[in-house]
Every structure is written in structure tokens, then in C-alpha cells.
């Protein structure tokens, strides 16, 4: 296959109704939220805000009602996400749980796991982190060394996970680890996933500060952690297939092209009331990128809704999206010369600095640019 098709996103009048409701809700909720806080995009973290979204029924929107969901469409959920992100809402607390842990539980979890956890995610009361990367396993996920060994009625886990975002705020981790020794011929075999209660004895979480000095990342160390039998997610040995099944959810959403959006808002504010041709052209180019990416991302939501597995298309959205997210600060600094220190230019400068400092991570997290392009190349039949 050498062409990727992004079918026209199916129309969703319900989603547009929902959009109006969300905009009204956010106008009130966020009216005092400062630009620099909005610029944090999905790094912004506020468990109380997540609970209020849960009260609105806006977490797990597509999930079955039996598990706290609303049984609404992926397109409606898409609109919810993009409105939250475009407004700079603090969605970080629940983001991973709602985006990929919940859907993984829905797909692979036992009835007991689903009944116990999903309604709490939907209520905004239960947060998850991703247990994939390790000190020696970044892009090469199959090389993980953390292992779970059967013991009695459960499992004994030893190893270290790294770059675990928000682990200190989370209740659970979905742990990806070895449950059988590495077979060099079948590197992806012998891995499994577990739903790990982070309050269990033997788990130590250590903060890692990013280049700005902020604490989002953590190292999570497992020392003889005993997991009950029912902590296994899905089937033993199927970890790789299950993890890659998450990727379409992880890589195609609007957070993959809206991370810098608030800087664009501040840029447009700084350019008022009139702009020259060069500025209009630069803004138009960025706008064209965002408008196109929205359509691609909605198209993937439509594919998910139709039951397809658009992992390749998702890789493409993320690759293109990160380019735009990283281009926005470059264009912004090119268009606005340093002005006198008015309160307004101070806000612009702060948001530009924040976005510039965080931009390198946009093409690292969730699969590096090189890995994504490797996936696309495989889709082209080149490897």
C-alpha cells in the first residue's frame, strides 16, 4: 500500500450541538485562567476541573453507559477534546486515563476490571499513567527489561519505568513488561500488560525535572511488587499487540497539533488591529495547516467510529501535527519584534517562552518523529 486515505469525516450535527454546550461551559469555567496557564495545553493539571468534566458526563463520552459513559460517537468526543484544548483547559489529570487507558480496559479488561475502574475514570476521580519507557528502552519498546514473574496466585514485578508523566498524581499505571524471557527471533513475544495500583508496597516514584525545572516526568521503580492475578490486562504474552492497538487513540487526537495553539491566540492578539502582507501570509500558512490537520484528525475519529484500526493514519497526523506545533513559536518570533514592555507584550513574551521551551518534546512524546516515519515507511512496503 502506498497511499493513505483519509475519508471525508462523516457529518455530525450532534457534535456541533455539543460544541456550543462546551464553549458555554468553558467560557464560565476558564474566565479567570491566565494566558500562561492556558499555554500549558494538556500539561495543565487540575483534578477538580477533571471532576467537573466528569459531572458533565464529558469523560468517557463514547463508552457504554454501564461503565459510566454516554455511548456517544467518536466525532462528538473529538469535538469535546478540541474545544478543551483550544481553550487551554487543564485536562492533564485525566487525559491519559480517558484517552487510552480506559479504551484499553474496554477492549481487553475483564468484567470485574471494567466495572471497578471505568466508572471512576468517567467521574474524573481515577487517573492513569503509561508504563512503557524504561532507562534503556525508549523508542525500542520491545527491549523492556521490567519483568513480571508468576508467583502463587499473582505476579512479582521488578524493574524501572521512566518518563512516566504525572505518576505522582495517578492511581494506576498500565504496565508493559516481560512475562517471558526475550526471544531474539520473536522480540515482541513474551510481553504483557498489567493494571497496577500505584499504592502497592514496593513502588517508589521519583520526580524528574524537565529542562524548565517543572515536575511532570517520573521514574517509577518496582522492587518485588506483588500483583494479584487479576492485575493482568488482556492475555499473557499479548502485550505487544495490545500496546500497538492503543496507538491509534494515542496519536491521532487534536492534542497532536494544538499543543502550541494558545501561542497562536496571543500572536493574533499581538497583531491587532492591522497586520502587513507578510504577517497575513505567515498566519494564513499556519491556519491552512491547522485546518487541514483538523480534517485529518476528524477523519481518523470517523475511522475509529467505523471500527477500523487507523494506526498508520494516526502516525501521520502526529508527524504532521508536531511539525506545525513546533513551527508556531518560530513563526511567532519572526512576526513580532520586541516591543516596549507593556503588559500585553509581556504576556506574549511569556507564552512564547513557554512554548519555545516545551516544543522539543512535541516530536518526542508518544513516538518520536523518526519512529513515526518508520511506521509510515513500513506502510509503504519499504521495510
Amino acid at each position, binding site marked *: 500500500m502506498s497511499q493513505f486515505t483519509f475519508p471525508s469525516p462523516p457529518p455530525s450535527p450532534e457534535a456541533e450541538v455539543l460544541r456550543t454546550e462546551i464553549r458555554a461551559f468553558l467560557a464560565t469555567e476558564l474566565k479567570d485562567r491566565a494566558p500562561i496557564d492556558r499555554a500549558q495545553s494538556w500539561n495543565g493539571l487540575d483534578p477538580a476541573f477533571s471532576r467537573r468534566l466528569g459531572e458533565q458526563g464529558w469523560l468517557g463520552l463514547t463508552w457504554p453507559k454501564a461503565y459510566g459513559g454516554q455511548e456517544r460517537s467518536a466525532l462528538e468526543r473529538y469535538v469535546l477534546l478540541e474545544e478543551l484544548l483550544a481553550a487551554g483547559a487543564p485536562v492533564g489529570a485525566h487525559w491519559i486515563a480517558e484517552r487510552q487507558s480506559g479504551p484499553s480496559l474496554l477492549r481487553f479488561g475483564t468484567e470485574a476490571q471494567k466495572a471497578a475502574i471505568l466508572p471512576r475514570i468517567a467521574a474524573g476521580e481515577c487517573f492513569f499513567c503509561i508504563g512503557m519507557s524504561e532507562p534503556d528502552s525508549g523508542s525500542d519498546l520491545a527491549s523492556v527489561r521490567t519483568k513480571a514473574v508468576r508467583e502463587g496466585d499473582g505476579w512479582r514485578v521488578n524493574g524501572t519505568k521512566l518518563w512516566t508523566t504525572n505518576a505522582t498524581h495517578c492511581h494506576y499505571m498500565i504496565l508493559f513488561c516481560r512475562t517471558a524471557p526475550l526471544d531474539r527471533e520473536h522480540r515482541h513475544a513474551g510481553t504483557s500488560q498489567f493494571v497496577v495500583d500505584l499504592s502497592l508496597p514496593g513502588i517508589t516514584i521519583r520526580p524528574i525535572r524537565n529542562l524548565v525545572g517543572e515536575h511532570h516526568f517520573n521514574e517509577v521503580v518496582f522492587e518485588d511488587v506483588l500483583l494479584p492475578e487479576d492485575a493482568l490486562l488482556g492475555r499473557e504474552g499479548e502485550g505487544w499487540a495490545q500496546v500497538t492497538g492503543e496507538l491509534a487513540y494515542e496519536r491521532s487526537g487534536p492534542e497532536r497539533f494544538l499543543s502550541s495553539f494558545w501561542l497562536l491566540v496571543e500572536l493574533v492578539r499581538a497583531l491587532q488591529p492591522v497586520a502587513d502582507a507578510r504577517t497575513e501570509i505567515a498566519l494564513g500558512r499556519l491556519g491552512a495547516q*491547522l485546518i487541514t490537520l483538523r480534517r485529518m484528525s476528524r477523519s481518523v475519529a470517523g475511522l475509529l467510529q467505523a471500527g477500523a484500526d487507523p494506526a498508520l493514519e494516526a502516525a501521520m497526523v502526529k508527524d504532521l501535527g508536531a511539525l506545525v506545533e513546533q513551527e508556531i513559536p518560530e513563526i511567532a518570533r519572526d512576526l513580532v519584534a520586541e516591543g516596549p514592555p507593556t503588559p500585553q507584550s509581556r504576556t506574549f513574551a511569556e507564552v512564547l517562552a513557554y512554548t519555545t521551551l516545551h516544543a522539543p518534546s512535541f516530536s518526542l512524546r508518544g513516538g518520536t518523529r523518526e519512529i513515526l516515519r518508520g511506521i509510515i515507511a513500513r506502510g509503504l512496503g519499504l521495510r
Partner: protein
Amino acid sequence: MMEAHTDLQADDAGAMLRETADRLLADRLTPQARARSAAGEWPDELWAALDEVGLPAAILPEEAGGFGVPVADALSLLTVAGSHALQLPLADTMLAGLVLARAGIEVPAGPLAVAQGCEARLDPAGRATGHAWGVPWGRHARAVVVLADGPGGPVLVALPQAALTVEPGADIAGDPSDTVRFEAVAAPSAPAPPSAACLRAAGAATRALMIAGALGAVSTMTAGYARERRQFGRAIGQFQAVQQNLAVLAGQAASAAAAAGLAAEAVAAWGPGLLPAVAAAKVRTGEAAGQAAAIAHQVHGAIGFTQEHRLHHYTRRLWAWRDAFGREAEWAQVLGRHLIAAGPDGLWPAITAA
């Protein structure tokens, strides 16, 4: 995954039309036909074949001689035209037919054109005088559509071929892009579409669609070449540096296809969202054309830079279509001005409305 796509796209008449067009062009657009066309000969038989299966008229409403295919589906034919680097004015004939039918002017048979630029006035007796430039395939068009200043405002005029003096020109691909002059020509006219910008946008949309189709073909062709061409004892597509470039090319092709879909739907809707949507699409497809053509040539190496190889049929047209009906600078300015005018609070609603 492909099955799911097919299901979602097995819409319709659109899919059938695309298949018909694809088969026909694969059979009939031979290297010999291309060579004759490049030499300035009008490929009458090929045009007749397109006409016979109803492609140029597919976009027209039934009362104007079409067969009621939704406009966006009919426009999707142009992605097929692009995927064959078609050197015939199918896009222009469809575009002219669409705007004439919408204006209530009878659509002439045969190839038609919409001028990219013109200075024309219509006197009270309904006679048009002026000139128009950038008329794609103007010398072969049975009628050229222009916007003229009428006594009561802008009017759409369908100038008959017989009344035109043609000065031949060519675009960067070598395809005809002529200047036509006309003096007191009696021609059917009607009040213009919402604005000259809308007419230009519809033209830009046709080029966005053809670029998207061409980029799909270029991506396929280039990945195929990389799988076959061997150097250093292996296919060049095995090298990561080449793979990464081909992934970028595929991404640009996909992005262009999404943008072109947006443009087609905006032309079909013909509402207030037309200009921002088409502006976004023309900018994005134009940028994608530039990046993708560069990678395609890089991967093909010297053989792709020859006249014998078919790559240039695509890349030269990508550059021509990038320019036609407004290049990136023009449409980026349209969109940028719109977004800046929306202001910080209106920026996001303007993006979601496009």
C-alpha cells in the same frame, strides 16, 4: 484497514465515476497521446471518449444536461485527472459548466474555460469588450467564461469561441494558458456569483483537487521506484534516509488529499465558508506539491530528470497547478487576513468554521 476505507467511500456515484475515469485514462492517455498533445495537437478522440462517458458534464444539474451527481463527488473526478497528470481541460470545463449552470446560463457543449484574470466591460446592449489572460486551454475552448463590469455590477459572461482573438501562451508545464481578446461581442451573461473571489476560489479548488490526485500517484510511483532500484547491493528504499523522505512524501500527499476534500465540499456548499476553506486547501496543496515534488525527484535521481521518464508529467503540472488561480502567497493572505480579523477570541471559531 483498506476494507474499512472502501466501505466508507463506497458512497456513491462518485466512486463509480472515479473508477470509470481511472480506467479510461489508464487505457487512453498513452505516451503517444501525451506527445501529440505536447506538440500542440488537440487530442480530439480522447476528449470525445471523456465526453462519451459523461465526465465533463457530471458536475451539472440534470436540468443543465448532467446526471445529478452531488457536486463534491463530481469534483472528486479531478483527483483522478490529477493522478494521471491529465493534460486536457476537464477541470476547466467542469468549472465553467458549474458556474454557468448556477448562473442560469446555458452550458455550451465541448471544452470550456474560466479565465484566471480579465479586464472586461459589458455595455447596456449586452456586448462584451476587453481581454482575459491565463485562460487554460483557451485556444480550444468553445466558450471562455469571464467576469465583466456590467451596467449594474459584475456579470458572468460566456464568450463564444468564434468571437475571440487568441494569443497563445503556456504555463510552466507547457500546457496552453492563453490570452483572449474580444470586441463588442454579444454573449450570454448573468449576474455574477457572489464575488470575483468566489469564482477564483472555485478555480483554485479544481487545482487543489488535481494536485492531491497527482501527489497520490507521485507517492505511489516514488515508493515503487525505491523498492526496485538497487544500489550498494540493496533496494534504495531499504536505507533509512530514503525511507524517512518517502514517509514525508506520503504525509504530504495525504495532507493534500484531506485539504482538497475540504475544498470540494466548500465549492459544493457554495456558502460563506467557501473562501477560507479553499484558501486553506490551495495553500496546503501548494506547499505539499513543492515538498513532494522535491522528494520525488531526489529519490528518482537522474532518470527522473529526463524527458523519457514520466515523473515530469506530474511534477511540472504540480508546479503549474500550484500557480493556477492563485499561488500560496495569494491564498495565505486571504486566510491570514480572515484569521487576524477574527481576533484572539474569534480565531478558534474561525478555524472550526473553515
